């Protein structure tokens, strides 16, 4: 089962679903044939697509809409906020090539502020699957809910067998640790997994959490990690502002607690466009680089004691 098969099956079983795209057909190539008139391609018009999705939702439809992450989250932002957000309509946003996944496109196509933007909209839920398996496990619940949602689509093959069933507002606690806990979402989960292994091999006690649901967020998982580990690390292919680091900070502050939190994110700049493996290497986000950077922090943490 892949994304398109799941969507086709869902839409064929329930005619409330319509599938829309602003001429971004990569994920839904065969759907004009399988879905007929319930496949709606509005051409390169992200704003019109979102407005029309709101109109379709007013008539009882559940539009699942597709566009490149940068254009969906920014070109159409005010339409999402005003038509879908204020209307609190069940429009399901499938955001293609978010974060590092736009690899060689360059900064025009880099959606690395999308989490910040989307979670700023009342009623909007935000989900970031670790891989294809994680994605497919969460979509049925997300599509069936009555709220608007934004999903950072990630169809990369799973490097980990996810066993914890998906629940809105729940993170997947992969492991618990007392030295450091890595909080991560999306495609960087795979690298964080490698980093965790490497740190463990070096004798550290390492926790790893696949955040999955960024809004609503699993506050309990964050608080537990803060209480257990010496250091929390947030890892994200997103600007430092408004993403997971901010969410963790907000959560700790809200519960009047604190922790040493080290963010790995993009600080006030776009990333170097290249093939994905080279992006990760250049930006210091491969598993091995992350492990080294985290180990440095742990050393600092010890010396400061």
């Amino acid at each position, binding site marked *: 089962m892949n994304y398109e098969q799941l969507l086709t099956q869902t839409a064929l079983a329930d005619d409330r679903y319509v599938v829309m795209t602003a001429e971004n057909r990569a994920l839904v190539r065969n759907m004009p044939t399988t879905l007929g008139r319930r496949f709606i391609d509005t051409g390169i*018009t992200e704003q019109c697509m979102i407005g029309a999705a709101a109109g379709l939702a007013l*008539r009882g439809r559940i539009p699942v809409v597709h566009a490149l992450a940068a254009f969906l989250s920014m070109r159409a932002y005010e339409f999402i906020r005003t038509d879908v957000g204020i209307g609190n309509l069940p429009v399901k946003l499938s955001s293609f090539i978010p974060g590092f996944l736009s690899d060689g496109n360059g900064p025009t196509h880099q959606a690395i502020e999308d989490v910040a933007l989307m979670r700023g909209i009342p009623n909007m839920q935000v989900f970031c699957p670790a891989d294809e398996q994680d994605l497919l496990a969460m979509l049925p619940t997300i599509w069936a809910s009555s709220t608007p949602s934004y999903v950072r689509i990630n169809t990369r093959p799973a490097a980990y067998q996810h066993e914890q069933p998906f629940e809105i507002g729940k993170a997947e606690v992969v492991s618990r640790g007392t030295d450091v806990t890595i909080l991560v979402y999306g495609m960087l989960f795979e690298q964080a997994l490698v980093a965790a292994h490497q740190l463990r091999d070096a004798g550290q006690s390492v926790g790893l959490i696949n955040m999955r649901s960024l809004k609503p967020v699993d506050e309990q998982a964050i608080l537990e990690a803060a209480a257990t580990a010496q250091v929390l690390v947030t890892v994200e292919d997103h600007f430092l502002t408004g993403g997971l680091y901010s969410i963790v900070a907000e959560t700790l502050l809200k519960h009047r607690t604190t922790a040493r939190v080290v963010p790995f994110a993009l600080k006030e700049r776009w990333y170097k466009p290249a093939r994905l493996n080279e992006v990760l290497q250049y930006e210091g986000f491969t598993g091995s680089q992350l492990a080294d950077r985290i180990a440095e922090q742990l050393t600092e943490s010890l010396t400061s004691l």
Partner: protein
Amino acid sequence: MQHKTIERLQQTAFRVRKHIIRMSTDGGCFTGASLSATDVIVYLYAEFLNVTQETLNDPNRDYLFLSKGHDVPALYGTFVELGWLAADRLQHHLSAGDHLYWHPNVNIPGIEFHSGSLGHLPSVALGVALDCKLRGTDNKVVCILGDGELNEGSVWEAVLVANAYQLDNLLFLVDRNFFQANMPTEELIPLEPLTDKFTAFGAAVKRVDGHDFTALDEALSTFPFQTGKLNVLIADTRRGKGLPSIEARADRWFCNFTHDEVDELLGELHGSAKATLESETLVVR
């Protein structure tokens, strides 16, 4: 159209204009933009749209979307005349205890969708029209746009897409009052030849005097204008229509009059001499 029908429409529009003038104080409203759209809104609800208080939630009703949301006093005034809204609620305009403010919201029965940010509802209306086509129902879907609103690129996206999907159940009605916020349209971002622009985008276009009920009726009696095409009706109107003291003035878009001025303007509407207005003209955009 029968003479007595025209007379009835004129009387209704007259009363709606009174409601608008009364809302133009204690905080004010977009008086000029509301008065220009009054006749088309009154006409649509009285003669064109298949919707009643009983069918406001019926999926087979006709829809009206007010994309030019700042003329909502004309719509609320019309709802009062239709009996959908209690007249005394208009006195709650801008009160935190009610839902009437400068732009529409769905807490008022009859408002199909909130608006205020220009260039949104052509796409929303398009989605509704598309769903009606998918389901094979024969609802009519009307979206009222301002002419200044046509500056927004999203309007033209919607025209292109409506044309691609052959939405002949959809009508974009342009309140062509020749003003945008602070300027005559032709002095800022010229729109003419406007019929040609819509035609070139694939729509079936008609253009009429938007204060002439007979002309509106003749134009809309042939709806859809052409099978498989988006309908566009350009209604030529005057900003501030009905009040010569503010008519066709760039500086009388948003108005906040004193109570005495409101009384004078009501007199002016009834045919008395032009009101002397001392309230400052307001620039709100």
